[in-house]
């Protein structure tokens, strides 16, 4: 019985596949301890690709309803060539399949990705969306991803764009960048000159990509606003820097940029987009939550198992938990292990498709989070008001209504599975995001989105 059989209409149409178990980089903000057991995980994944295990599980979980496949885990191009026979079969088994997504650090020979696209079955056009993990100029990317990575990523993406432009493919190819920043980067971006340097870097980068896209074989999306690393441990000072950074972005909008989308906060765009649906906040709250466990599931490395999304991939691996306890790298899991939150994640947010009761319980818990928002808003409002009274966020959040809006605002950044691990409940937001957004940043976003809304009407 597929997961969608429990509903009137198919709810789950997207899969995040655990596609690679170890990584070729060791980024500063990555929470996964780079231990030898990751190679074993990767080997298990390769076996599952080769023996048809993934395909079998996808059929059992989604039936014919699968539309989107995302390759997640660590670096997907480490195994992407292995997926060619998988897709030859998948386009037949899943008649609605229309989109493939992956995020690559482009630190591996781009030929892996090029040959994957070349050999994708041409039965029907698929949308192939490739996210480039590039954080900005060398002083950001090299710091986060390792010395020399900036130059390598640029060269490899250029090589990729050039090669794709020589290909005849029926598929609709898209690339976009996904820059990630930690608290140190936010501190740098709070200086106007640094923020400008960042956008100039991407303007030049995109101009080079456009020059290579001679046959327009790829749609190059030009937004490049940085996003925060999640999970993150943000404090009040970072929140103040975050606000200064946003002010710099707004100032930089005045420059006429040639190749990039005008600078803006990625979170402003998310908020402004959602604002137009506020009338449906309590009737369709799922429009305001993440797609994890709502429309998508994470397909694990063990037969039959799936979780809410890629966040669950390592959760039930005892070696992972052991490595976290030894290294202290994954602070959320570390706390979750001591408080029991991690155990709650294992029990509630992972299910076995071959165990009906297990699946029903999983769906019940995940749907409850996405379909009802009052509890989340109530707890968040109380936390925000308390923080405002303590002087840790702006005093305006002593107002109940503004505190509720801030709670909703933080929802565009936080992860309900991290919250469950950390607090034992998905309905409680971490202080971290209130401190980050509640020190001027969200007020700015709110004010501008209201003005925009009035002007549009």
């Amino acid at each position, binding site marked *: 019985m597929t997961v969608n059989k429990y509903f009137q209409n198919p709810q789950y149409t997207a899969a995040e596949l655990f596609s690679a178990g170890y990584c070729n980089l060791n980024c500063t903000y990555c929470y996964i301890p780079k231990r030898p057991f990751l190679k074993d995980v990767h080997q298990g994944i390769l076996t599952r690709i080769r023996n048809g295990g993934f395909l079998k599980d996808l059929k059992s979980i989604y039936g014919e309803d699968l539309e989107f496949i995302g390759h997640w885990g660590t670096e997907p191009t480490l195994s992407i060539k292995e997926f060619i026979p998988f897709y030859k079969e998948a386009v037949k088994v899943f008649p609605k399949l229309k989109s493939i997504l992956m995020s690559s650090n482009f630190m591996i020979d781009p030929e892996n990705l090029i040959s994957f696209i070349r050999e994708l079955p041409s039965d029907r056009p698929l949308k192939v969306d490739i996210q480039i993990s590039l954080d900005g100029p060398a002083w950001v990317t090299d710091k986060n991803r390792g010395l020399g990575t900036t130059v390598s990523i640029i060269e490899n993406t250029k090589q990729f764009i050039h090669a794709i432009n020589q290909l005849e493919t029926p598929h609709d190819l898209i690339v976009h960048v996904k820059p990630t920043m930690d608290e140190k980067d936010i501190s740098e971006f709070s200086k106007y000159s640094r923020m400008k340097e960042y956008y100039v870097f991407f303007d030049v980068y995109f101009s080079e990509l456009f020059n290579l896209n001679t046959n327009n074989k790829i749609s190059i999306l030009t937004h490049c606003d940085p996003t925060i690393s999640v999970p993150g441990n943000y404090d009040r000072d970072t929140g103040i820097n975050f606000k200064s950074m946003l002010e710099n972005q707004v100032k930089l909008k005045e420059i006429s940029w040639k190749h990039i989308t005008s600078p803006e906060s990625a979170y402003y765009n998310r908020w402004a987009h959602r604002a137009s649906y506020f009338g449906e906040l309590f009737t369709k709250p799922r429009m305001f939550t993440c797609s994890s466990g709502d429309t998508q599931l994470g397909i694990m490395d063990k037969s039959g198992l799936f979780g809410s999304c890629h966040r669950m991939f390592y959760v039930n691996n005892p070696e992972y938990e052991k490595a976290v306890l030894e290294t202290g790298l994954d602070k959320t899991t570390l706390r979750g292990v001591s408080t029991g939150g991690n155990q709650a994640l294992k029990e509630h947010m992972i299910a076995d498709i071959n165990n009906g009761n297990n699946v029903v319980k999983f769906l019940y818990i995940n*749907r409850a989070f996405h*379909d009802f928002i009052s509890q989340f808003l109530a707890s968040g409002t109380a936390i925000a008001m308390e923080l405002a009274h303590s002087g840790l966020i702006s005093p305006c959040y002593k107002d109940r209504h503004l505190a509720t809006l801030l709670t909703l605002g933080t929802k565009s950044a936080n992860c309900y599975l991290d919250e469950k691990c950390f607090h034992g409940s998905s309905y409680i937001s971490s202080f971290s995001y209130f401190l980050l957004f509640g020190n001027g940043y969200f007020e700015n976003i709110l004010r501008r989105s209201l003005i925009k809304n009035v002007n549009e009407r």
Partner: protein
Amino acid sequence: MSMKDDFTVWANKVKRFLNSEECLSIMKVDHKKGVFKVLDIIESHYDPYHEGYIPSEQEVKDIKEVAHMIFSVLEEIPISEDISYFILSLIHVLSTWNGNVWKDADFLLKLQYLERHVKNELTISESIVTLDKSAERLRGTVKGSNPPSLKISEHYFNLLEGE
């Protein structure tokens, strides 16, 4: 008073509302633009007025859309005094134009119905039809907000019972 002068007086009343704060509460920007456009179209028909002028299909379509928009407003939004005054002014502009230019009997009936609606003078049978439509829309809203979790709850409660 000439046809053009009469139009100008009533069109100004409509425009005054369109430029007011309250307009934002009942109309989207596209609708607002649509009303302004229709006022321009009608003005062009009076300037100068030609007896027997046949409006283009597009012009009629734009004007009918505005009448339809008023209908939606009446169905969905509590009508304040200012909104009522705006709608009656607009109905006056449209029905005068219909009497002089388009001369369409169905459109006239529709405008008369809208006028009765604003003035709370609907007949019993018209009220029943209106309520029926409102109920249908409400059913749609309830169905639309029917969260998938309700369906899974049935299965979950069965499971608990079984345990």
